[in-house]
């Protein structure tokens, strides 16, 4: 509920482990709210929901450590380097330095970029660093809100590769995006969110 009005009403959907599901719909339709709900950031006013078998109303603390959310902001510290950011976020989940290093390498923010302050990075490099943080945290459910925004063509391709790799290694991805062509080709299923309602639409070819 926001301002006394239900953001999502009559929304029913399920996502299987290892799927990439695209959420599409106009601005204000409830896509971001659905992602925040799945992350345990918004309480459920009515109805039921669960993530990895944990109840969204009563067990949000058990859900959060397994979820990684990348919204409009990256959740990075500008005065830390790329490596320090990834190490910090990885360490909050108990990642070893080898796992942190692997995440930095996998997202291509190693080498020259590794010791650059995040504040000096381009939008795409920041996005990649934020994704490296999700990898280092070993997030099992990736909730991505407009992940392609601000990325150049190469950055978008890289992001798609990262998402496919994440799914190959067992992660589940929920993407809210207006870029239907790109995100649609990536997704196993497409779900339309309109005025708080959720409808499955034709899967991408």
């Amino acid at each position: 509920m926001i301002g006394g009005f239900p953001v999502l009403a009559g929304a029913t959907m399920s996502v299987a482990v290892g799927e990439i599901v695209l959420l599409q719909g106009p601005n204000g339709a409830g896509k971001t709210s659905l992602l925040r709900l799945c992350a345990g950031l918004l309480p459920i006013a009515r109805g039921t929901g669960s993530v990895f078998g944990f109840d969204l109303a009563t067990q949000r603390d058990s859900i959060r450590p397994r979820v990684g959310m990348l919204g409009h902001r990256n959740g990075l510290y500008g005065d830390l380097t790329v490596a320090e950011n990834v190490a910090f976020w990885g360490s909050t989940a108990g990642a070893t330095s080898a796992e942190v290093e692997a995440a930095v390498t996998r997202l291509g923010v190693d080498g020259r970029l590794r010791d650059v302050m995040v504040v000096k990075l381009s939008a795409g490099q920041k996005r990649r660093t934020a994704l490296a943080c999700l990898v280092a945290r070993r997030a099992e459910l990736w909730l991505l809100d407009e992940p392609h925004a601000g990325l150049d063509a190469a950055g978008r391709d890289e992001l798609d590769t990262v998402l496919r790799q994440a799914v190959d290694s067992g992660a589940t991805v929920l993407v809210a995006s207006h870029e239907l062509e790109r995100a649609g080709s990536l997704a196993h299923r497409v779900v339309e969110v309109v005025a708080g309602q959720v409808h499955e639409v034709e899967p991408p070819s």
Partner: protein
Amino acid sequence: MSRWRIARLVAGKDLRIERRSRVLTNQVLPFAGVTMVMFAFALDASNVLERVAPGLIWLATLFSMLVLVQRSFAIESDDGALDALRVAGVDPVAIYWGKSIALAVQLAALEIVLLIAAVLLYGAEVPLGGIVLLATTLVTATCGLACVGTLYGGLTAGFTGRETLLPLLVLPVVAPVLIGATRAVESALGTDGVALSEGWPWIGLLAVFAVAFGAGGALAFGPLIEEAT
């Protein structure tokens, strides 16, 4: 991961950011120094400055603390890191303790500089016998201030107008620290012939304040940032 380890991680991250951005050395310390000089201009009469030096040290500390608290939470809000910490399920008690420790370290550095400034500018004298009381006052008052600052910094982090809201909320709450720390430092410095023994009961007040906000703040911080961000 243990709560204590995450607290150390958060404190280390905050102190590393401070070391890089140098807000304490380049902005807060000059601000505190200018405040002390302005006090000296305003109260430039014989013996007045020396008598009121303990209170001025703590007033300058409180005003400067507001800048440090705002900075401490600005680094969390700028790119949505506080939200990300919540999503990551990082223990809010550990975040609270970690940020309090980092703030306490910065406050301690600030207080030492202000004490030196009081000696140089106001002619305050630190007798050898008062050093233990002075050090204990600094430690207990710093812990209390850091806990209150972190609690209210988290509370106001998500609000527009937090720059003006924070002083309105924090300054009345830390009045007991201002009073207790001022009295204790007066005793430590022997201001106006106040006996050293008169300072120790104030340490009790400061310790109770620090423990109350350390424990209460740890419990309240999680729900507060849930609502505020």
